[in-house]
């Protein structure tokens, strides 16, 4: 009876979580749902005379694998939700049809199968679950086990190889960066100092409020572009700030073309490049959204 209750509760939870995993817009939610499923399953393992597997499930899956997922999610960026608009014609329809069909067929098949009463593992695990399992693994399946170790090492090596990026040039030191900033200032007049902080006269979370310059005008440099884009999307951006941002973008573009010319004439200065590149990279984003 106890098992029934456990099963039904955890079954409902895990199916709901699975649906959540599939249909939630944000990857982080999906990851959390997956964690929930794994824990539920761990419990179900434990219920089914597999305490060792339940422990491994918690440690390996919820402990290691899930963390890995979350790490990667953070690395890739959590801020953007996944678009749920399907681009391949018929994909979603057929996927769901196939999924339901598959589940129904499999379910019917299993349900219709005349299964005898479960034998239970009492006999097989007379010496206790873990020792019995260990005996199996280290006797009958020892070769497979050793091969798995090779697999794990290979996987670790592979991950390192894949994630490793060979550096093409020496890592720029602080001194290099500082010099580059001043070189840029000499060529284009770009401010070499740090950007002004936002938030003068703010009444609330002022990170989206521009700072005022000594003459009372707005300093567009003080506004985080990402925020400005959000506000532009929501239509709450101050038109004055928008105008200034546009102006700023234009001057930056001019500066970047200038910098390119500089780079062309003086190719011996590689350190300028990444700098200007990032500037040029973000600029069109803003302009489009502001419009």
């Amino acid at each position, binding site marked *: 009876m106890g098992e029934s209750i456990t099963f039904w509760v955890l079954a409902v939870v895990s199916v709901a979580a699975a649906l959540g995993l599939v249909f939630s817009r944000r990857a982080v939610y999906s990851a959390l749902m997956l964690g929930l499923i794994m824990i539920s399953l761990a419990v179900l393992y434990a219920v089914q005379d597999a305490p060792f597997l339940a422990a491994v499930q918690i440690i390996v899956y919820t402990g290691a694998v899930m963390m890995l997922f979350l790490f990667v999610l953070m690395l890739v960026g959590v801020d953007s939700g996944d678009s749920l608009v399907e681009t*391949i014609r018929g*994909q979603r329809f*057929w*996927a769901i049809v*196939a*999924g339901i*069909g*598959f589940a129904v*067929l*499999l379910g*019917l*098949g299993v349900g219709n199968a005349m299964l005898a009463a479960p034998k239970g593992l009492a006999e097989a695990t007379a010496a206790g679950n873990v020792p019995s399992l260990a005996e199996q693994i280290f006797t009958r399946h020892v070769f497979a086990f050793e091969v798995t170790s090779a697999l794990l090492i290979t996987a670790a090596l592979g991950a390192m190889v894949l994630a490793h990026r060979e550096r093409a040039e020496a890592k720029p030191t602080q001194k290099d960066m500082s010099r580059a900033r001043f070189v840029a200032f000499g060529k284009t007049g770009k401010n070499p100092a740090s950007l002004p902080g936002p938030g003068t006269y703010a009444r609330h979370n002022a990170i989206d409020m521009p700072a005022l310059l000594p003459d009372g005008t707005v300093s567009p440099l003080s506004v985080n572009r990402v925020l400005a884009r959000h506000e532009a999307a929501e239509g709450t951006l101050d038109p004055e700030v928008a105008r200034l941002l546009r102006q700023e973008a234009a001057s930056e573009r001019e500066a970047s073309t200038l910098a390119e010319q500089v780079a062309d004439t003086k190719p011996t200065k590689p350190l300028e490049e990444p700098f200007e590149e990032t500037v040029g990279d973000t600029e069109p984003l803003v302009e489009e959204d502001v419009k």
Partner: protein
Amino acid sequence: MEAAEIASITQHSGGAIGAAWLMIALPLVGAAVLLLGGRRTDKFGHLLGVLMAVASFVVAALAFVQLLGFAPGERRRGVSLFEFIPGLVDKVGLLVDPLSISFCLLITGVGSLIHVYSIGYMAHDPNRRRFFAYLNLFVAAMLLLVLADNYLALFVGWEGVGLASYLLIGFWQHKPSAATAAKKAFIVNRVGDVGLLIAMFTIFATFHSLTFSGVLDRAGDASQGTLTAIGLLLLVGACGKSAQLPLQSWLLDAMEGPTPVSALIHAATMVTAGVYLIVRSGPIFEGTGTAQLVVTIVGVATLLAGAIIGTAKDDIKKALAGSTMSQIGYMVLAAGVGPAGYAFAIAHLITHGFFKADMFLGAGSVMHAMNDEVDMRKYGGLRKVMPITFATFLVGYLAIIGFPLLSGYFTKDGIIETAMEHSAVLGWLAVLGAGITGFYMSRLVFMTFFGKKRWDAKAHPHESPAVMTVPLLLLSIGSIALGAYLILGNRFMIFLSPAVGAPEHLPEFHPFSAPGLATLALVAIGAAFAWLRYGAAEVPATAPRGSFLTTFARRDLYGDALNEALFMRPGQWLTRLAVFFDNRGVDGLVNGLAASIGGSSGRLRRVQTGFVRSYALSIFVGAAVLVGAWFVVGNL
């Protein structure tokens, strides 16, 4: 005289008869040396050619003499040569008998004279060596044709002469007209050859043999229908080679070749091969009245057609070619009558070989003198400047129109008499033909040698050199005397009888029979009419338009037009259609199939979106289907 049956063949291996293969081999070697030797043999090529032809004649003469030494019943001598095609013709051999030896003498004799004549006629041609090579090749092939002891070897010679004829008609190959004429001659001949081929298939299927002895001795065993079929098919072959209706159209065009060729091949020898074939296959034709009737009808029709064509031609060689057609028509008519006609057919063939060769060579002599002008309207009055040519030509002319006591008189009269006995209608038509002959030959002679000079300004006619006139003289002797020698006392008929059989009653020579007199009268009327039109009156320099009949004759009785409308045009159309069908239909079907497969693959390819999820979907659907299938099958 009771030698009505064909004698059996005795194998023979000695003397000139045993060496009969030399007759063929000598000119063949000559041709091979001249063709393979190339320009190195230019200097002596013509002499070698003549030498080989004369040598062949010597062998033939020796064989003839040897043959005369045997009793008449033993005059068919077989010479076995080598194994050919096991099963079909086990052994190829030669058959030397009165019939073949007569042809051999004619071919090598007249052939040698024409070889000699050609030395002079072709003196200025840079390719004279090649000309003699072809002439030698022709002589060899023609001898193989008449000497073969089986149909297959005969066919080899038959096609060999066709090839030689093709090469010689097209000798001046740079002239498109010559090349076209040569091709036409070969192709029309091929139509006949198909007949001969199928005749051979039928013969082999019926008699399991292709040798003359194996076939002709057992001709009576086959059914009437089979014999008729074989006979008609052989006739088709003969029509092609001998320019009989309806396969006559090539002969007039063949005059594009050098004149000695026209004399040798298209007058004296090759074109008579059809007559030889019919006479040689006599037992087959004798077994079937239908085939014989058709043969005689073809003969008479051609005889008249040729004569009519001859009346309207202004080209001297074409007029003579029409005449050749007509004379061969006489021979075919005689050959169709049966044993009674064979001797006359062959005798006329031989005398015709002489007088027609004589006239062709004479015409060649005239052309030679007139800068190769062939239009008789530009001749006239040549008898004074070319006396020898004129004299010899006159002999040939008199012989052909049947002037009493000359060769043609005896042989042609014999044919008319025989035909008359066979069927009065055919006989009288043959008489009519003789009358027309009188007209057109007289016209030719009057326009060429009599009347006023109508020469081109540049023409300076002169008598030809001796190397050309001597052969003319020799040929005219034959034209004068041969007929009387052969016919009087049935000498030739008796000589031939071991080979072809003889009628139960030997004919008697009636110099003043009704048909004979009628023929003479008609010929005289024709000649007189020709004198009025072309001898006494002025001959216009350009041909008048003439009546419908003249046009009809000028256009070769619309034979070419008919061929063109019936075969050439639809043929070209069919060819184009077939090519179109092949490119668009057969190939189009294949390529269309390929294109549609390509197209559907292209459409199918779009399924491959490149999106991993699409592939995953198909895997997943596949898995679901598998589960379903397992479910269904498991529950069966």
